[in-house]
């Protein structure tokens, strides 16, 4: 009788798997997603389904074309997650082809061409979002004010199919601006931030999510809850979210105190746009962030600084996606230079000097 394996030990394994990790992340996203689908109605749900479906279909197609096994990769949940995050970053009433094109960029270009799961340098969902943002700025900045399902003024299912799949979108009805967009536009017209802040949704609405924005980004509280859930489940650690949010908060606060007419407050930076979704769900993407905890802190700070810089000085009102992508490109360098100190060695790799307690 022989029990010889083809590999050495250990002969035991924790109950961990890629699928389990992905499932937990999806579960953490569920509350915010459900809330926003309710808030923005049928068109949001349709776009969500189209985007997620496209991502899975494109992944399956790519795998099939290259003769790789389809089933294990599709069931690991990574394509669903990419599609999910991409959908959450789109304006809820955007037409269906925005989702499909975004999915194509995300899965085929950002993920598959780099070698598939684990090999991509850039966050696929953010590549998808940025690609459609740059290509279709009109559709990508057309937000809607909240129109909760089954309330007056909310489109019915048939009308929604028209909004998502038809040509009937009247851009005027969906012309609400996100808070960041509004303030940026006002500033460019010479209206100081301190003044335009009076016209954006209040703190409570921002926290609960009752304001125009991307499909999954409006409810600060629900996203925060999802992020804390992931931390409790040890899927993510505090390092990236805290350093990212902390940096943005500190920078925002300092500059706001120095010149409230020009700079947004730190709290508003954190509560608005994709900050929380980005900090907990996007910047923490395993594949494209550093592997060491100290590296993750550097990464988080970098994302925070770049987000503030882009929001404050660049042409786009929102900068999280760009910031994350820029930091993604630095991840290999961060991993190379910032690593844990090996046991019994200095940071340079030399043996520690011999010291004894007396």
């Amino acid at each position, binding site marked *: 009788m022989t029990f010889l394996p083809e590999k050495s*030990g250990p*002969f035991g394994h924790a109950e961990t798997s890629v699928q389990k990790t992905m499932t937990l992340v999806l579960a953490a996203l569920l509350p915010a997603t459900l809330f926003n689908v309710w808030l923005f109605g049928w068109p949001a749900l349709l776009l969500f389904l189209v985007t997620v479906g496209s991502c899975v279909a494109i992944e399956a197609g790519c795998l099939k074309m290259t003769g790789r096994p389809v089933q294990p990769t599709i069931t690991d949940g990574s394509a669903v997650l990419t599609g999910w995050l991409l959908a959450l970053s789109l304006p809820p009433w955007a037409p269906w082809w925005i989702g499909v094109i975004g999915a194509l960029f995300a899965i085929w270009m950002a993920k598959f061409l780099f070698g598939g799961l684990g090999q991509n340098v850039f966050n696929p969902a953010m590549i998808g979002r940025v690609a459609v943002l740059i290509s279709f700025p009109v559709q990508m900045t057309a937000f809607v004010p909240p129109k909760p399902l089954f309330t007056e003024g909310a489109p019915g299912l048939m009308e929604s199919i028209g909004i998502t799949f038809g040509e009937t979108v009247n851009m005027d009805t969906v012309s609400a601006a996100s808070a960041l967009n509004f303030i940026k536009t006002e500033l460019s017209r010479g209206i100081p931030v301190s003044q335009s802040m009076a016209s954006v949704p209040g703190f409570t609405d921002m926290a609960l999510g009752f304001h125009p924005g991307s499909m999954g980004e409006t409810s600060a509280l629900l996203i925060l809850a999802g992020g804390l859930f992931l931390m409790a489940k040890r899927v993510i650690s505090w390092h990236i979210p805290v350093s990212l949010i902390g940096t943005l908060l500190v920078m925002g606060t300092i500059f706001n105190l120095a010149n409230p007419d020009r700079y947004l407050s730190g709290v508003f930076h954190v509560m608005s746009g994709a900050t929380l979704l980005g900090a907990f769900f996007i910047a923490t993407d395993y594949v494209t962030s550093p*592997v060491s905890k100290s590296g993750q802190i550097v990464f988080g700070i970098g994302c925070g600084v770049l987000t503030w810089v882009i929001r404050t000085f660049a042409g786009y009102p929102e900068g999280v996606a760009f910031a994350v992508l820029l930091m993604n490109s630095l991840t290999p360098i961060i991993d190379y230079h910032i*690593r844990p100190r*090996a046991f019994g*060695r200095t940071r340079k790799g030399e043996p520690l000097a011999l010291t004894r307690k007396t």
Partner: protein
Amino acid sequence: MKLFAIRGGIHPDYRKELCAEKAIVALPLPRKLTIPLQQHAGAPALPVVAVGDVVGKGQVLAKAQGMISAPVHAPTSGRIAEIGDFPAPHPSGLTQRSIILEPDGRDAWADDLPAPIADPFKASARDIGDRVAASGIVGLGGAAFPSAVKLSLGTRHKLDMLLLNGAECEPYLTCDDRVMREYTDEVVDGARIMAHALGAPRVVVAIEDNKPAALAAMVKAAGAFANVEVVSVPVQYPMGSERHLTQAIIGLETPARKLTADLGVVVHNVATARAVHHAVRFGRPLVSRVVTVSGKGISQPKNVDVPLGTAVSELLAFCGGLSGTPKRVISGGPMMGQPLPSLDVPVVKGTSGILALTDAEVNEKPAGPCIRCGTCVTICPCGLVPVEMAAFIRKENMDGAAKSGVMDCVSCGSCSYVCPSHIPLVHYFNYAKGMINAKDRERRKTEQTKAMVEVRAARLEKLAEAKHKATAARKAPTETPGEGKASA
């Protein structure tokens, strides 16, 4: 006592409850013992008996040869039936020189056992070291490094502490736990003798706090001695690693390429201390050890006192045999143990456990792509970056792997255990270590050959020169015979 944190580590499923409450039972004498000549790190022992010899229990069968080696003794009385090559308890499945002993059933100790050392605390370190060496005692935690070599560290280092390792951090294993509970006084006495030999003023016994009974027993026994202290250390695999345990106790990292002795600490296993007690107080060499037989593939898990050389199959039969077909049969713990090539191999000095693990316990899955989750980096107790080393090794870039620190890896298995993609990281690292060592040996051999060729060339050149001179000298007189004649 203040404890210090160690980096990383994991909390595997311990499953010690299978065996923790099973008192140690002695295995009935097997019909045949297969005693390998190498049950320790270092050089194999040299047989001093011949086929047909009748030996007493504890008689030397093979003597140590070289600096790092250990003798082997007859585990019971009987007749030497054969000396030959038999399967070794090693995953390679290769054979090893072994002595076959047929027990006579009397289990009678030999007459010429060394005399007990009357007062070990008056004996010299040398005498105790010699006795431990002559008794064939090796590290019983699993590494099987000759204990006498580690006991002699006191001559070259000023030591502060004997750190007695009762952490037993491997899942399933309970042999050290049981030894501490059932032979408490023997362990403490052995430890005090070892500390005396080392010249270490203190003994600290470290026990993971998942063994409350062992802790209580040891605390009670240690109470009688001012210099013996028992410390409960947190459950954190690999707490039982020598360097990590030392760090947890004294707060200092052992520098790379140094020993814990350089920090004033020598670490020995609790079962080793008991073996020292037997050797010094009774003159009895190491002829048996306590083995944990466990896993859900075993009908009746037990802690068994096993004569060395007993076939694993016989030990399993004593434990009710296998239940169903286990996925893996392991010697040692599941984290760092070795798979057994067959059940016909013997139990040796380093065998701390025999585990038969079911499919569910092993939880093996095909490896998937790395998602760079970084868990392996977070938990690596050696501060390495397993994900990076694995990437180098996958590309056969051994220089990159070495630079990334693969030779500092202790193969504790934590990274493989947690990897969500089930990547066999430790397998990669063991492979790389083998490749790098082989390359190193090759390089050294080439250098040696080169040096030898140079010496030879120099010698030949010298020889040729000498020959040339001799020829010239010989030619010189023959060329001038006329002159000679003339002068004559």
